[in-house]
């Protein structure tokens, strides 16, 4: 590391000393400092990604779309739809609830409450996966404390269902949204609200014409982030529901470990490619909007 920085920085200093020539000139030193990172990503991320693409598109030694079409039919298609539905539902709910919670905290006068909620969000947003699944099984599972005390099972409650899983996902998605949207809410200047109020706008009109339009890119960005997290989640579902809710991540895991049929590895790779395509599509919506938010919330 020291080696790369020392080689990079003299070149950087010459750039500083001659600011007029800074733009448009090649600085091999700066690129040299980035070489280890780029090489690592190429090796640890690029090679597996290419292997995935290659495997997904090869059928019996030649290239074809057989795996891809298999991955969007039958049980695989159901699982893909199930994942998209679960991710979209939980992300939408968490975005709204996270916004409400963040607004409640940001506008409260007590600084302690704000600090406590933001710290707790930092912890809970990282409390995903296996421990989260077990906490919910202990609470709302078949032998869970709340289930047995309140007799929820008689009312048809099951944690091992779509809504049970959704309720569990919200536990880390809402804090993630709070963390995402709180800085943007802080960026809403009180002057805008004052200006709206002195021009005779109601609270509703303020939010309709000022607040939400300014926040919209952040909200959509948050939604994309939440969607991505929920869509990619595997550990929670795998250690909780088994296969009672069809999810694409579990189909991939099953196909990889040869649980269903031997020789399904390429379909697993095709499903992985499907996931990447969905993630790319969702992200493509968000990128152009991100620029707009920077203008207001800088």
């Amino acid at each position, binding site marked *: 590391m*020291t080696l790369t920085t020392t080689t990079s920085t003299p070149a950087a200093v010459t750039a500083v000393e001659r600011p007029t020539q800074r733009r448009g000139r090649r600085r091999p030193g700066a690129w040299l400092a*980035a070489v280890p990172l780029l090489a690592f990503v190429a090796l640890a*991320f690029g090679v597996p990604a290419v292997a995935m693409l290659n495997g997904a598109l090869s059928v019996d030694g030649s290239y074809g779309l057989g795996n891809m079409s298999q991955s969007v039919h039958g049980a695989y298609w159901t699982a893909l739809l199930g994942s998209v539905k679960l991710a979209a539902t939980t992300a939408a709910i968490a975005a709204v609830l996270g916004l409400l919670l963040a607004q409640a905290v940001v506008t409260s006068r007590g600084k302690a409450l704000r600090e406590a909620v933001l710290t707790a969000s930092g912890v809970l947003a990282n*409390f995903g996966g296996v421990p989260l699944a077990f*906490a919910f*099984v202990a609470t709302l599972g078949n032998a869970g404390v709340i289930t047995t005390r309140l007799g929820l099972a008689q009312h048809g409650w099951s944690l091992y269902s779509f809504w049970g899983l959704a309720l569990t996902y919200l536990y880390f998605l809402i804090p993630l949204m709070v963390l995402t949207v709180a800085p943007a809410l802080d960026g809403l200047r009180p002057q805008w609200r004052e200006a709206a109020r002195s021009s005779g706008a109601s609270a509703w009109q303020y939010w309709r014409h000022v607040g939400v339009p300014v926040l919209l890119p952040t909200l959509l960005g948050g939604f994309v982030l939440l969607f991505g997290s929920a869509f990619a989640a595997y*550990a929670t579902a795998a250690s909780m529901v088994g296969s009672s809710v069809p999810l694409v991540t579990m189909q991939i895991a099953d196909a990889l470990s040869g649980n269903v049929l031997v020789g399904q590895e390429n379909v697993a790779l095709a499903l992985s490619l499907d996931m990447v395509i969905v993630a790319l599509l969702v992200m493509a919506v968000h990128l152009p909007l991100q620029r707009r938010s920077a203008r207001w919330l800088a």
Partner: protein
Amino acid sequence: MARLTYPLRPWRGAVLLIAGIYFLVPLLASLVFTVDVPGQGLTLESYTQIFSADGFTAALLRSVGLALCTVALALLLTLPAALAVRLSGSGRLRAVLEVVCTLPLVVPPVALVAGLGTVLKWGPDHLATTPLYQTFVAIQNPSFPLVLVFAYVVMALPFVYRSLDAGLRAVDVRTLVEAARDLGASWPRALFAVVLPNLRTALLNASFLALALVLGEFTVASLLGFQPFAVWIVQASGDNAQLSVAVSLLSLLLTWGLLLVVTGLARTRGTRGARKSRKKEAV
């Protein structure tokens, strides 16, 4: 900044109350689940037997080792690149790095492990006669699977890069380095005594995110067949549900403690540094 004071509206109280219930009930219920065992009454046995449980220590130590290696490697790779962007002001390098460090977000861990598994299979399939084969075997050593560190660094990269970039944005690195160099500091000294202390919060944030990610990671490890902490919890749950819930609660406490340590470090060091610089100003 003059803030408008808002009257305490009922909706705010309702939101906070519902959120409080939703977030506290699973934790309290888990606690009750672990101490109130059916047929045994109140007992702390779930917690006392954790440390003697089969494989607990090995799995935990493996996870901690993987986490520390991941943090070290991620910072070693990302810091020079992020610094070079700020010092050189190269727009093209910045754009390239931003794309490269966002890409892993598009590939979910399950998809990454599908690709990774395919590559690892090349070892025995195609490379068995080449010296590269030994490398493939070495990085898959079950007691310390280096290949997991590689995967985790890729997964942590977006968060680590963003955190460092935000930290670098907040300080004028170029002026700092220039000033240090003008005062006769060598390059390593300018880096370690001037730049890095200013990045302390960003470095700590990046480390926390990477640590939390690795300590709780299940997907990649379980699908590649290794057994760090999270995989161990799932296997232990088959024998003893109380034990696995107890360990889950402890791991939440561990994350909490980690975050408190990180914010605490950032705060105390920060004020000490500020005090020092104020003293210097006075002199």
